[in-house]
């Protein structure tokens, strides 16, 4: 039991940190521009594909730098040449624009790399067990993943709180007009934030591409969960996003490992349920089978209990 707990906890933290890498960019963009970027998970997927392609050409380590940079450039282009023009047409048009973009990126990826998963594998240089926990070895690339996520959070936090540009970004978050009136280039900041957010998604993609299958459905696989994290954490709150991603990461990983259903609970409590009982099928669902819906259940629960999210301060 202890073994299961420790291993699940570790995997949950890894998963949670990856989720956070994705949501941090999304939250940053949202809190600054009020735009929910539906294409964020697609940029993540692009990061995975870029890292595969660059990795094949020039190796994994350069790809680790180049893929996020490419994603950042794409993000900047999306803001500068797309969103900025849609901005005047209202929020629905903005969301729909990014939604359409997500749709297009999926098709473009199919067009360039095909419908099947590409063979992205863990590079040899980090494919060794870092340490063993109760006989289960912990691979080095997961360690690298954690290191990158933590470094990134520290970097982001310091950049926002301790640098001048971070100060201006924070000012533009709450008072864009005032920041503009003081002579700061707010539209330029938007491009910067979008680029940084997309680069973070790309970085998460490099790492996520190793962990999950790099295929055109990848964006759809992670996208909804990322949005759940953003809502549960509270829109626009970086710390909320961190807590929510860790929580969802750990809960979902634990759920996968639990091989019990409501039937087992009833048995312990002495409640007799037979196959003929109504809702038998519902009771028989194992927690492990229900793991994929855990984030969404959490979302609904959160909405009922605390509609603005864990650390959210405003209603969007």
């Amino acid at each position, binding site marked *: 039991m202890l073994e299961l707990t420790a291993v699940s906890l570790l995997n949950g933290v890894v998963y949670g940190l990856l989720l956070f890498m994705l949501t941090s960019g999304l939250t940053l963009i949202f809190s600054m521009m*009020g735009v*929910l970027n539906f294409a964020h998970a697609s940029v993540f997927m692009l990061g995975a594909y870029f890292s595969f392609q660059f990795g094949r050409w020039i190796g994994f380590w350069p790809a680790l730098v180049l893929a996020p940079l490419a994603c950042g450039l794409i993000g900047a282009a999306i803001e500068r040449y*797309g969103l900025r*023009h*849609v901005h*005047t*047409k*209202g*929020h*629905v*048009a903005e*969301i*729909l*624009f990014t*939604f*359409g*973009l997500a*749709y*297009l990126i999926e*098709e*473009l990826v*199919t*067009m*360039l*790399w*095909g*419908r099947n998963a590409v063979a992205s594998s863990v590079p040899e240089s980090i494919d060794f067990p870092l340490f063993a926990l109760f006989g289960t070895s912990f691979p080095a690339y997961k360690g690298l993943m954690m290191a990158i996520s933590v470094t990134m959070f520290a970097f982001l936090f310091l950049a926002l709180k301790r640098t001048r540009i971070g100060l201006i970004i924070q000012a533009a978050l709450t008072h864009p007009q005032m920041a503009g009136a003081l002579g700061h280039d707010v539209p330029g900041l938007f491009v910067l934030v979008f680029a940084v957010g997309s680069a973070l998604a790309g970085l998460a993609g490099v790492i996520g591409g190793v962990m999950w299958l790099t295929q055109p459905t990848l964006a*759809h696989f992670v996208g*909804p969960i990322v*949005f*759940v994290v*953003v*809502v549960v954490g509270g*829109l626009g709150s970086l710390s909320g996003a961190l807590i929510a991603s860790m929580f969802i990461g750990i809960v979902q990983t634990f759920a996968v490992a639990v091989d019990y259903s409501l039937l087992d609970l009833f048995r312990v409590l002495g409640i007799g349920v037979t196959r003929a009982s109504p809702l038998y*099928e*519902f009771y028989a*669902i194992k927690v492990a*089978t*229900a793991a*994929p*819906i855990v*984030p*969404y*259940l959490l*979302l*609904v629960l959160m*909405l*009922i209990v605390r*509609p603005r999210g864990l650390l959210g301060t405003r*209603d*969007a």
Partner: protein
Amino acid sequence: MKTGSALAAPPATFTAAQGNGAGRYRAWLATAVVLSVLPHVPGLNTDFGHSLLSQMGIAAVFALSFNVLLGQTGLLSFGHAVYFGLGGYAAIHFMRAINHGLPVPIALVPLAGAAAGLLFGILFGSVTTRRSGTIFALISLGVGELVYAATFMLPGYFGGEEGITANRTRAPELFGLNFGSQLQVYYVIASWALVAAMLMHAFIRTPLGRMCNAIRDNPERAEFIGYNTQHVRFFAFAVAGLFAGLAGGLHAINYEIVAADSVSALRSGTVLLMAYIGGVTHFAGPVVGAITLTWLQISLSDYTAAWLLYLGLFFMAIILFAPSGLAGLIVMHAAVVRTKAFRRLLAAYAIALVPAAVMGTGAVLLIEMSYRLSTHPELGAKMRLLWIAMDTATPWPWIVAVVLLVAGFVAFRMTWRRVAAAWDRAGDEARGGRFGGGDGSAR
């Protein structure tokens, strides 16, 4: 982008088919006549044509129900297929009960779908409509994923990947309808679609419908008058769920099978595309979108594997340049068709069409070649496109495609200025009337 905003200014009215009572009844009567004649029109009087029309009818009801949310109430849902699909499941189980002896004619099956749609609309709506705007969009997405995942966890009710099947012919007959032919199915679907469209149109004109429009346009003000916006959103959501469920019921009759794909995010996305491409600011817009997209889906998917990409590009073009959709474009042109500048406008269109076609050819070449190479590498590098044989292993087809694309784009931008100028002129002439005003985007 100046031209974009010029094109983006739609008329201020939000409901099509307006006018006085008599005119409205005439419009509905005309629709009924068209619907009954359509399956006998040459080209559509085959089984394939009837099936196509049936699909269009289902899509139209579904898209209209979606627009009760987006166009009328300003709620953007990414999970509307939930109510379509759950309605469909209820209907298919109802059909199975009929197969096992329940004495109800099949034509009434959509009512079971509508009831389920309403029920789940109330159930999920009570949670999701607590918020509006972006958060509502996210929650609807989450609920969609929840239900989709649940269909696989409860195979007894949902049948998993294979779905649930029933038989529409093993049922008591009503008015001699035995559902043996697709034509009979079409007539049942068309009748229900007409009734649903009339009801939804009537809904907009009820006080509740008007309040929906009010909270779409200015929720703060509606609250100050004393309305609870959350309640209004909830009622609109339940109504939308009801009609989506009805569409799901029609789907169950048409296909005799309902599977997990009917609640999927893909279907939710499709209905969003249909409604938006058709135009959410006009009542008939979603119908236009449903017909166009169903037709494109069936005709294009025969020719190209990349049709979803074309659809995505089309959608983006609508968002950027014509946010009031195809219906908006139609109404916009109808407003200036009588002006003198209209001929000039047509001439400008004709000139701009040439570089647009060149640009489109270049894009299509690039897309088709890449798609072929990436999705069917086993077919080799030689292919036939637009009746021309080409070898994609050589650089020439690629160079030609890129040159066509770039040159077409540059020329198009130049010629489009003439179109913009012609529009300004036509707009000025028509300005005395009802042109101008209204921002047109469904907020």
